[in-house]
């Protein structure tokens, strides 16, 4: 028991983003399914291993129609992992869960020609056996960043899983910064800062004045109590070394 207390191993809370293929069915479903069949015929396995979201926003259908559609899709080996824009009345325990807060990404190229594309497609899918690499790969080349030019007030949350967040100002107690990349605070950091939330262990946290309530990198966290007291109020950078959070003064 004492062993557990002296060496706490917190549960890792990680975020991960995947690029999902969003299908927008149109009424009547027979016609739409026929077009889908046509697309699938051009490239067998196009939907294989792809997370698929069904966007039913604005569709005037009832739950039974939706259930039939999901059934028709699964017959075609299209497994729907979530519903977007579904009214509450449409949802049910036997249907995929509702998804919210989706952000648009670049269009996924539909297969055009038959043979040529098939070889290309196999190449593209086969080597990427661990699925997560599919989504972050294009992001790694152009890492977007977000700059906030005002103080982040208590109760406000800056959520930016795509990349780095820079705050020119303070982060108040009770405020929260969540970034996929690193976090830079040009002011006192008094709230929570969570960097590298999409599985980026090389993300760091920088601040002018460390008074944070909680800091986390790639799911490993430390509360204010666990931070070395002599770092408080100093300009500090925080990084991850293996599974330990390290911190040191800057400059």
């Amino acid at each position: 028991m004492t062993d557990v207390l002296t060496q706490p191993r917190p549960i890792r809370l990680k975020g991960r983003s995947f690029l999902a293929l969003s299908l927008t069915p149109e009424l009547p479903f027979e016609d739409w399914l026929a077009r889908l069949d046509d697309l699938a015929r051009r490239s067998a396995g196009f939907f294989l291993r792809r997370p698929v979201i069904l966007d039913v926003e604005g569709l005037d259908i009832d739950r039974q129609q939706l259930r039939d559609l999901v059934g028709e899709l699964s017959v075609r080996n299209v497994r729907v992992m979530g519903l977007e824009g579904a009214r509450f009345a449409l949802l049910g325990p036997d249907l995929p869960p509702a998804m919210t807060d989706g952000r648009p990404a670049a269009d996924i190229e539909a297969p055009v020609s038959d043979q040529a594309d098939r070889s290309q497609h196999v190449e593209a899918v086969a080597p990427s056996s661990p699925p997560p690499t599919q989504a972050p790969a294009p992001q790694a080349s152009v890492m977007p960043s977000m700059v906030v030019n005002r103080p982040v007030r208590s109760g406000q949350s800056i959520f930016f899983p795509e990349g780095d967040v820079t705050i020119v100002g303070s982060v108040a107690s009770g405020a929260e910064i969540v970034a996929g990349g690193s976090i830079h605070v040009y002011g006192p950091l008094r709230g929570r800062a969570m960097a590298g939330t999409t599985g980026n262990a090389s993300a760091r946290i920088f601040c002018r004045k460390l008074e944070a309530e909680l800091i986390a990198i790639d799911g490993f966290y430390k509360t204010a109590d666990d931070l070395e007291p002599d770092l408080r109020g100093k300009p500090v950078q925080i990084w991850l070394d293996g599974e330990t959070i390290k911190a040191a003064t800057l400059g």
Partner: protein
Amino acid sequence: MGKVIVVTSGKGGVGKTTSSAALGAALAQSGDRVVVVDFDVGLRNLDLVMGAERRVVYDLVNVIQGEAKLTQALIRDKRVETLYLLPASQTRDKDNLTPEGVEQVIAALKNAFDWVICDSPAGIERGATLAMRHADVAIVVTNPEVSSVRDSDRIIGLLDSKTLKAENGERVEKHLLLTRYDAARAERGDMLKVDDVLEILSIPLLGIIPESMDVLRASNVGAPVTLADGRCAPSLAYFEATRRLKGENLPVTIPGDKRSFLGKIFGRKAA
């Protein structure tokens, strides 16, 4: 066209109502036409602090629901004739405040008065958000202690996002009013210092009201402190804040300190 001021704080008991009444009375004594509106529907107090509790017939909710005219609900102060009160209802709750109703009442008051002071309820729910909705100027009342400062920070965030001005891409002018300040305790470290609060909230300072028995005494006799005793320390601080609100640039007096801190405190404008 009058200016709409919201007196807000997030936290309860920091002195919103006392400050609304004191500032209202101070502005009115300078000859401006002032109305103080109590938004704390269900827990009305402003009428007591202003000594009008025995003259309330109609209230804000009656006006919003069309049961009374605005002129019927307004109560004129007996001591300063340019000071009016629009009381809240004690029997209803805040769900009776509708955005459209509040908008109409505020628009009508703006036409008739130089200053419309909205005394916000504590919290960040409907009553508080409706009170700040139409504000041109916000006075954030804060005590020098950590929980009050954090709640004020939260309110400043809401002022920057939930007000009509913020939604139109403009900014609500925000001022910090530090109340119940005790110089001796701040010096001993029992209380946050002025600089600490300013550093955390980073909005300009409107005034520092010292902790004083005079404020309590004034509330108990049903008079805004600036009317009850115009020469006591908190009254002087409220009068000073009023002049600053009207655009004068004068140094903030820090209670317990004879020197003025023009360069150090005032003019520190961030955010």
